[in-house]
C-alpha cells in the first residue's frame, strides 16, 4: 500500500502527459513505406497469368515477396545485418524457395505461399561456391550445395543431408560450378587456372565418384564467369584472348577434348576490352538446358545462338545491336527470350523490350515500349515473367532494375504497373523544406515585396489582389460544397508537383532525402562498382515521391551534408538547397545545388574546390538574393564562400572578426578554433587536445540553429527564477576511453564553447562504454551509455544553469561570460537498448520537449523530458511539489502508450528527423531506416487546435439560446418594471 503513494503521484503526472493514437486516427496523420533494398535475386511464382507473387532477395539480407500487381509487400523476412545474414543464392522451385545464407553457413527453405520457414540446416564450414537443384524424371527432390572443399546433397522435403563428399585435390583445383541435367549424376566442375578443367561425376544415390576427367584448357581462367552448360550437357565456354567458343560434352565416357569454334567463323567480333558473357537457360532443373543461348559481345551487343542437336555446330539465330540486357523466361513448354534495346540511338530514354518465344519452329516477336526516367539510372537487370494466355499464346511482364535501385514492373503493351524506389531503404540524411505559397498568396506577398510608386497604383494593386483573393476563396468554397455531396471515399487528394502549396498550418512539407548504399559484397554479383546516390523529394503528408534525381559520378564512400540555403519565404526567388558531397578518402568535395521543391538542378556557377574540405558552415549572412552564405574551409584553413557575390564578400569582410569556427580531428584528439581574417584566411586562436592514449573523440554535436527557446529560466518553488545557461556556441564532445576493460572503461562528456575553446564542463562516466547516443539542445544534454559494471543501459542528463541572476540578460556573448554555469546531473536506468535519439522541435519552443527514442524493436518512444530532469528530488518537499517535479526514481518507465508508431514498427531504424510545423503544438517526425515512417507528435497535446469532434452545433446553439434568453428576460424585466411603476 505504501508503495502506491509515490506511484500514484507518478501516475498523475503520467495522466497529464500520456498520449496515444485513437483507433480511428490510425493512418490519418502518419504513413509508413516499407522497403527491401537493392535486389540481388528475383524470381517469379508459378507461370500462370493470375499469379501475383514475386520473390526477391536483397543486399539488405532480406527475403521478401512482392505483389506483382501493386508492388506492395506480401511478407518480408529481415535477417541479420552484415555478412552473417548475406544471401548467397536464391533458388525457387514450385512451393519451395531455397536460400544459402552467410557464405554457406545456413541452408533455408521457405514456403512461398505464406512465407513460413519450412526448415533450416547448418551447413559444414567452408566458403560457398554454387548450388543447384537435382531432379530425376521431372521431379526435384534434392539440392546440391558446392563448397570450396566439399559437396553435399540435401533432401528438399526436410533438409536432411543425403550425403557429403570431400572434393579431390581441393587445394589445387578450384571448384566453381555444379550441374545436374536430370540424370542420376551430379557434375562438379573445377579448374586449375590456365592449365586444365576437371569434371567430377558423383552418383546421386550414394555420392560415390563415378568418374573423373581432366581436360586441357590453357586459356581458361574462370568457369564461373565464362562457361555455361547448353543443350544436352555441353559445356560452352568463351575466351576473349583466342576469340573463340569452346564446347565440351561433359557426359562423355571417354577422355573428352574441348572443341574450338572461332568467333570469326561465325562472323562475330568482340568489342575492345570487353569480357564476353554467355547466358543460357535451364527451364526445369530435372531437364537439360535449352540449346539456345545468348552471347554478349559488347556493352550493347548481344547475339542469340543455337547449338545443333548433336552439339557439333553453332548457328547464329539473331543479332541484337544495340541491346543492353537479355533474359530468358519459361512457361510450360515455351521459353521466351527478352532483349532490352533503346528505341532509337539518339534518344535512349525509351527502351524497347522485345520478346520472342521459341517454341519449335514458331518465332513470335512482340515489343513493349516504355519510357525510362531521365532522372533515374540506366537499366541494370531484367527479369521476365512469362505466362500462357487463355488462347495458349505466350504473354509476359517485365521487371526492370535500374542503377538507382528502382524496380519498375511493366505489362504489355508498355504500361508501367508500379515502381519501387528501393534506394530509400538506405537514407543517409534528410531535410524538410516548407512548400511554396499558392499563386494568390504569392501575389499578396509580392505586393509587399515590391516598392510601388505613388499612392494610387498602390491602392489599385491592393484592390486587385483583394479581388483575386476573393475569387480564390469563392472557388475554394465551391469546391468544398461540391465535394461535400460526394461520398468521402471518392475524394482523392492526388498530390502532384503542380498542386503543391503550403497548407494553412504548414503541416505539409517537402522531405528531401539523400540515399546512398555502397556496400555490395555478395560473391554472386559481378558488378561491384555500382554506387547508388540519389536525391528524393517526398511529400510529407502522403509519402508520395514527387521527384528524384540520380547523382552520377559520385565516389564511393562519400559523406553528405544537406544545407538549405534559401527557404521558400523569399518569393519570387526559388528555394535553394545545396548538397555537399565529400569524398572520405581524399576529402575533395563537390556541390550539387538544386531546387528542393522540383528537384531541378540550379544553373548557378559553383566555386572551384581544388583542396580537401575540412568544415562547412552556414552563416546568417544573406546576399541580395536572400541566399544564406555557405563557408567552406579547406585544409590550408582558407575559406571559400558560396555564393561569393560582391555583396556577400563585403559583408564577410565587415563581420570577419566575429566569425569563428572550430575543427575536430578525432585521430589526433584535437579541437581547434579559428577566426576569420578579412582576406578570407583564418588564424588559430585556441586549441584543446585530448590525448588519444587515454580517450578518443567519438562525436561532437552543437545545437540546431533553428531551435527557439521560449523560456529563459525556470520558476522554482519559492518563486525565484533559475536562469538557463543558453550558450548557442556550446559543443558537446563525447569521448570513449581507449582502455576497454569493464572496470576502467569510461565515457567522457566535455562541454566546450565553440568560440573561445573554454571547457565549460568536464564529466566522466566511470565503468561505461558506448555506443553513445546523445541529444544536445537548449541548456541540456541527454546521453545514453552502457554500464559495464551493472550491465545495463543508462540515461544521464546534464542541465546548465546560470543561477538566479543573469550575467547579461540582453545578449549572449561567449567572449563576455566569465562565470561558469552550474551543472546539474542525474542518471537513470533505461530498461532497453536504443538505436537512435532525437528531441522534438517546435516553432517557438513553448511546447514542452519530448525525447524520441528509437528502440531496436522498431518502436519510437516519446519520452517526456520531464522524466529526465536533474532536479527531480530524492525527497519530496513543498517546493518540489509546487514546481511539479516528479520524485526521483532510478528506473525510467517505458509505457506502450508512448510508442508514437503503435504497431508500425520501423526495421533497422537509423535516424529520426524532427521539424517544426506552423502549429506550435505540433512537431513533424520522420524516422528512417529500412522503412520510412512519418507522423506528427503533440508533446503538450493539441492546445492550439480544436478537436476533430468539437461540437460546433452545440456551442452555437447554446450561444444562440443564451442570446435569446437574455433578450426575452430583458423584455420581461422591462414589462415587470413598467407594471411596478403603474402600481
Amino acid at each position, binding site marked *: 500500500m505504501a508503495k502506491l503513494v509515490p506511484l500514484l503521484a507518478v501516475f498523475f503526472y503520467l495522466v497529464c502527459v500520456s498520449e496515444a493514437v485513437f483507433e480511428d486516427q490510425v493512418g490519418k496523420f502518419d504513413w509508413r513505406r516499407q522497403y527491401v533494398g537493392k535486389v540481388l535475386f528475383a524470381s517469379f511464382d508459378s507461370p500462370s497469368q493470375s499469379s501475383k507473387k514475386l520473390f526477391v532477395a536483397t543486399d539488405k539480407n532480406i527475403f521478401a515477396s512482392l505483389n506483382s500487381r501493386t508492388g506492395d509487400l506480401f511478407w518480408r523476412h529481415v535477417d541479420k545485418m552484415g555478412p552473417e545474414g548475406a544471401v548467397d543464392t536464391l533458388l525457387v522451385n514450385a512451393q519451395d524457395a531455397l536460400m544459402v545464407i552467410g557464405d554457406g553457413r545456413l541452408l533455408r527453405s521457405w514456403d512461398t505461399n505464406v512465407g513460413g520457414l519450412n526448415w533450416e540446416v547448418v551447413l559444414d564450414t567452408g566458403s560457398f561456391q554454387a548450388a543447384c537443384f537435382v531432379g530425376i524424371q521431372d521431379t526435384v527432390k534434392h539440392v546440391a550445395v558446392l563448397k570450396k572443399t566439399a559437396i553435399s546433397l540435401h533432401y528438399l522435403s526436410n533438409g536432411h543431408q543425403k550425403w557429403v563428399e570431400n572434393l579431390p585435390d581441393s587445394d589445387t583445383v578450384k571448384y566453381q560450378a555444379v550441374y545436374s541435367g536430370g540424370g542420376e549424376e551430379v557434375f562438379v566442375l573445377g579448374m586449375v587456372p590456365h592449365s586444365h578443367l576437371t569434371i567430377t561425376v558423383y552418383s546421386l544415390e550414394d555420392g560415390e565418384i563415378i568418374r573423373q576427367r581432366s581436360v586441357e584448357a590453357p586459356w581458361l581462367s574462370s568457369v564461373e564467369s565464362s562457361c555455361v552448360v547448353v543443350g544436352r550437357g555441353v559445356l560452352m565456354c568463351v575466351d576473349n584472348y583466342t576469340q573463340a567458343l569452346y564446347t565440351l560434352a561433359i557426359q562423355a565416357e571417354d577422355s573428352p577434348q574441348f572443341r574450338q569454334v572461332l568467333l570469326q567463323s561465325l562472323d562475330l567480333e568482340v568489342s575492345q576490352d570487353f569480357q564476353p558473357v554467355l547466358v543460357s537457360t535451364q527451364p526445369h532443373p530435372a531437364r537439360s538446358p535449352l540449346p539456345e543461348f545468348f552471347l554478349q559481345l559488347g556493352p550493347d551487343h548481344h547475339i542469340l545462338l543455337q547449338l545443333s542437336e548433336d552439339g557439333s555446330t553453332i548457328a547464329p539465330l539473331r543479332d541484337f545491336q544495340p541491346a543492353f540486357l537479355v533474359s530468358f523466361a519459361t512457361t510450360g513448354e515455351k521459353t521466351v527470350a527478352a532483349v532490352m534495346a533503346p528505341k532509337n540511338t539518339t534518344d535512349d530514354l525509351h527502351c524497347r523490350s522485345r520478346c520472342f518465344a521459341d517454341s519449335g519452329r514458331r518465332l513470335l516477336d512482340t515489343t513493349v515500349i516504355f519510357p525510362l526516367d531521365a532522372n533515374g539510372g540506366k537499366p541494370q537487370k531484367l527479369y521476365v515473367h512469362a505466362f500462357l494466355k487463355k488462347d495458349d499464346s505466350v504473354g509476359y511482364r517485365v521487371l526492370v532494375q535500374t542503377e538507382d535501385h528502382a524496380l519498375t514492373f511493366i505489362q504489355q503493351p508498355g504500361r508501367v504497373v508500379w515502381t519501387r524506389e528501393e534506394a530509400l531503404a538506405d537514407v543517409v540524411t534528410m531535410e524538410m523544406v516548407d512548400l511554396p505559397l499558392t499563386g494568390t498568396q504569392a501575389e499578396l506577398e509580392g505586393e509587399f515585396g515590391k516598392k510601388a510608386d505613388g499612392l494610387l497604383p498602390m491602392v489599385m494593386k491592393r484592390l486587385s489582389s483583394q479581388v483575386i483573393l476573393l475569387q480564390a476563396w469563392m472557388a475554394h468554397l465551391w469546391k468544398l460544397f461540391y465535394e461535400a455531396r460526394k461520398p468521402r471515399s471518392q475524394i482523392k487528394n492526388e498530390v502532384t508537383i503542380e498542386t503543391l502549396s503550403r497548407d494553412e498550418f504548414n503541416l505539409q512539407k517537402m522531405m528531401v532525402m539523400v540515399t546512398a548504399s555502397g556496400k555490395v559484397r555478395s560473391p554472386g554479383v559481378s558488378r561491384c562498382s555500382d554506387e547508388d546516390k540519389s536525391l528524393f523529394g517526398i511529400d510529407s503528408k502522403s509519402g508520395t515521391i514527387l521527384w528524384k534525381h540520380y547523382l552520377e559520378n559520385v565516389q564511393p564512400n562519400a559523406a553528405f551534408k544537406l544545407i538549405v540555403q534559401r527557404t521558400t519565404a523569399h518569393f519570387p526567388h526559388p528555394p535553394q538547397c545545396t548538397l555537399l558531397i565529400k569524398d572520405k578518402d581524399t576529402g575533395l568535395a563537390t556541390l550539387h545545388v538544386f531546387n528542393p521543391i522540383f528537384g531541378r538542378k540550379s544553373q548557378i556557377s559553383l566555386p572551384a574546390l581544388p583542396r580537401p574540405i575540412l568544415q562547412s558552415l552556414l552563416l546568417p549572412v544573406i546576399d541580395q538574393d536572400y541566399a544564406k552564405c555557405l563557408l567552406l574551409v579547406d585544409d590550408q584553413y582558407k575559406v571559400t564562400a558560396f555564393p561569393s557575390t560582391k555583396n556577400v564578400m563585403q559583408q564577410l569582410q565587415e563581420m570577419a572578426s566575429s566569425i569563428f569556427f572550430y575543427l575536430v580531428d578525432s585521430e589526433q584528439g584535437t579541437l581547434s578554433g579559428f577566426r576569420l581574417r578579412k582576406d578570407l584566411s583564418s588564424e588559430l586562436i585556441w586549441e584543446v*587536445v585530448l*590525448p588519444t592514449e587515454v580517450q578518443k573523440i567519438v562525436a561532437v554535436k552543437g545545437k540546431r540553429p533553428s531551435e527557439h527557446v521560449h523560456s529563459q529560466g525556470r520558476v522554482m518553488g519559492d518563486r525565484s527564477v533559475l536562469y538557463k545557461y543558453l550558450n548557442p556556441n556550446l559543443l558537446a564532445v563525447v569521448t570513449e576511453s581507449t582502455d576497454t576493460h569493464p572496470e576502467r572503461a569510461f565515457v567522457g*562528456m566535455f562541454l566546450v564553447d565553440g568560440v573561445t575553446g573554454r571547457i565549460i*564542463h568536464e564529466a566522466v562516466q566511470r565503468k561505461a562504454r558506448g555506443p553513445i547516443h546523445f541529444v544536445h539542445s537548449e541548456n541540456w544534454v541527454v546521453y545514453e551509455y552502457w554500464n559495464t559494471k551493472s550491465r545495463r543501459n543508462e540515461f544521464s542528463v546534464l542541465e546548465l544553469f546560470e543561477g538566479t541572476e543573469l550575467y547579461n540578460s540582453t545578449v549572449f556573448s561567449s567572449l563576455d561570460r566569465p562565470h561558469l554555469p*552550474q551543472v546539474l546531473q542525474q542518471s537513470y536506468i533505461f530498461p532497453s537498448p536504443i538505436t537512435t535519439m532525437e528531441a522534438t522541435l517546435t516553432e517557438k519552443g513553448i511546447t514542452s520537449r519530448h525525447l524520441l527514442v528509437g528502440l531496436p524493436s522498431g518502436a519510437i518512444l516519446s519520452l517526456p523530458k520531464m522524466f529526465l530532469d536533474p532536479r527531480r528530488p530524492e525527497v519530496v518537499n513543498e517546493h518540489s511539489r509546487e514546481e511539479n517535479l516528479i520524485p526521483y526514481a*532510478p528506473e525510467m518507465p517505458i509505457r506502450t502508450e508512448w510508442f508514437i508508431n503503435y504497431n508500425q514498427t520501423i526495421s533497422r531504424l537509423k535516424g529520426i528527423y524532427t521539424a517544426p510545423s506552423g502549429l506550435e503544438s505540433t512537431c513533424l517526425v520522420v524516422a528512417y531506416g529500412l522503412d520510412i515512417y512519418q507522423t506528427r507528435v503533440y508533446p503538450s497535446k493539441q492546445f492550439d487546435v480544436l478537436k476533430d469532434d468539437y461540437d460546433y452545433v452545440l456551442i452555437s446553439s447554446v450561444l444562440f439560446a443564451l442570446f435569446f434568453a437574455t433578450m426575452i428576460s430583458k423584455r420581461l424585466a422591462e414589462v415587470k418594471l413598467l407594471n411596478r411603476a403603474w402600481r
Partner: protein
Amino acid sequence: MASGGPSFLLLSMVPTILLLCIDFACCNTGRRTSDGLDTDFTGFSVPLEHSFEVDDVSQFRVRGALQLRGGRETSVSLSQNQLSEEDRSTLKEVAAVDGLYRIRVPRVSLSADRQSDRPMDGFLTAFVRACSLVESHLSDVITLHTDVSGFLIGVSIVTIPGACRGTEVEDEVDLEAFNTTLNVIAPTNAPQPETALFIERMDMENEKRGKPQEQKSFFAKYWMYIVPLVLFLMMSGAQDQSGGGAGGGGANGGR
C-alpha cells in the same frame, strides 16, 4: 561580476551534482616572483607564454612560470613577471584595435610519475580580447583542465569583468602586474543511478505506513459484521433444528 575572486568557482551545491574538484587554487600577484621556488619539492615548472601583437601574428613570450607539484594532491602555483613599459603600450595598442591576447602552455601531465615518461609536443592555447584584459586592470582567471589521467587538455582565460566598454585606463600602474587567479579542474565523476537510496527510502516508507495496515486480517477488519451474522445464524439454526433433522431423514429414506 561584482562577486569576483575565487568564490565564483564554487558553484552552489545541489545534492545531485558532484562538484568540480578544484584541487588547488593559488592567487599570486606578480610581484612575488622569486619566492615559491622551493628546492625541496619534487615538482617541475613549465612556462606560461603570452602573445599580443598589433598585426595579430602570434609571437609568444614568457609571461611566467607554472609550478606544478605532482602526487596525490596536485597543486599548481604561478609566478609571473611584471609587464614592461613597452609591453604595456603594445597591450593598449592591441586593445585599441580590438586584437587578441593569447596565452599558451605546453602539453604536460600534472601527475609527476607520468611526466618523466616522455614530454609531449604541442601547446594548448586560449585567448581573450585584449581590451577586456586592459579594462579589467589585468585581473584574469586562468583555468587548467586535466583529463582523468592528469594530462593537461585545455587552458582557458577569462577576465573579470569580461566586457569591453571602451573605458580608458589612464593609470599605468594598473597595467603593471597581473592579478591572476589560477584554477586546476579535473573531470567530475558523473553520478550513477541512485538505486540504493531509492530502495532505502521505499523500505522506510513501507515500515512507516505499511505495517499496521497489512497485519490486519480479514477477521480483524470485519468482526463487527461477522459476529452478529454468526450469532444470528446460530440462533435461527437452533430454532428449526428439529425440522432440518426431519428433512435430512426424509432424504435418506428416499435413497
